[in-house]
């Protein structure tokens, strides 16, 4: 699958197999520049293009982690210990939390699906 990725505030917005060219126009600004580490040239237009082998949410997140790892960035939404989402992150598919979708992290993504990977902040004291 093809993925168009737009880093946001504390999140990555990902469009799967977009039907048309994805632009960042109109979106709010970026403040986590490290999310562009593997693709420094993409920062100018604000959209990262990535080819992913596989069709599932798991494949997408695994590929992302591999690409970040190669760039020296420790961004691993799937915890290798649990083989499930790491608790630093949450994922929505078209606005629905992945845990509420029948196949969860193994959900097959469809053309135009909007995946949001959120970095969770900590509020307890």
């Amino acid at each position: 699958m093809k993925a168009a990725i737009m880093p946001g505030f504390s999140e990555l917005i990902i469009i799967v197999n977009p039907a048309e060219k994805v632009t960042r126009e109109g979106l709010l600004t970026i403040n986590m520049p490290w999310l562009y580490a593997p693709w420094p040239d993409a920062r100018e237009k604000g959209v990262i293009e990535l080819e992913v082998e596989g069709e599932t949410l798991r494949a997408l997140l695994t590929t992302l982690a591999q690409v970040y790892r190669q760039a020296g960035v420790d961004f691993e939404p799937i915890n290798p210990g649990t083989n499930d989402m790491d608790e630093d992150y949450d994922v929505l598919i078209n606005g629905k939390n992945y845990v509420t979708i029948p196949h969860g992290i193994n959900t097959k993504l469809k053309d135009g699906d909007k995946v949001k990977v959120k970095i969770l902040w900590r509020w307890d004291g």
Partner: protein
Amino acid sequence: MLDRDELVRYNRQLRIPDFGEEGQQKLKNSHVVIAGVGGLGCASATYLAAAGVGHITIVDFDVVELSNLNRQVLYWEEDIGAKKVVVAQKKLSKLNSTVEITPICAEITEENVYSVIDGAQVVVDGLDRLNARLVLNAACVKQKVPYVYGGVSRLRGMVTTIIPGETPCLACFNPEGPRGLGVLGITPALIANLQALETIKLIIGQRPSLAGKLLLFNGNDMKFRVYDIEKNVGCKVCSQGAARYTGKDRKGPQGEG
């Protein structure tokens, strides 16, 4: 000038290059507000008092409960039912009687936040709610008081040092995340001590290491990650609000921060 007892008490930190008597004097003359004396606030208050911060204001509206004792180390079994700020004041004063401890038994609100942080050189986050943090963040930005954010859950934690006018503020991130996930007592102790270190650096005039950076601690894998973070020029609290991405004009008022 430090007196003889102070030279003895702080001997180990006076030996540190770039700290010395001048740094100690700055700590002695400083005023730090610790907002919330739970797991985070107990640890940061203890180490800042031990280090010799001259005036510490502690703010909390809660009373000590049995379920606090796994992490809130200023409180003991005999303190259950007592106001946290009263107990904390007593214990901190026993640790270092030269430190002035001001207890404020109140919840931080938009109405009282400016009086709570009045005169503070640094505000240290020990809260456990997003809304109160955003209120505190906005007041610190407005009053130009550095604010050291810390947050924890389970075995994970985060820290960033917010310097108004320079670094991103908490509101820049439109932050989301669950609370009430549980916490191992060691996690807030660790995060609070990082906050205390940042606070001391701010007071003695050193560049805080986490200004413009977000530290994430993962105690499950024993990983520390530090990421650069930038101001959101669309932030309604610290910037002009409602800016949208235009790609090339990244530093301009309509561009990316």
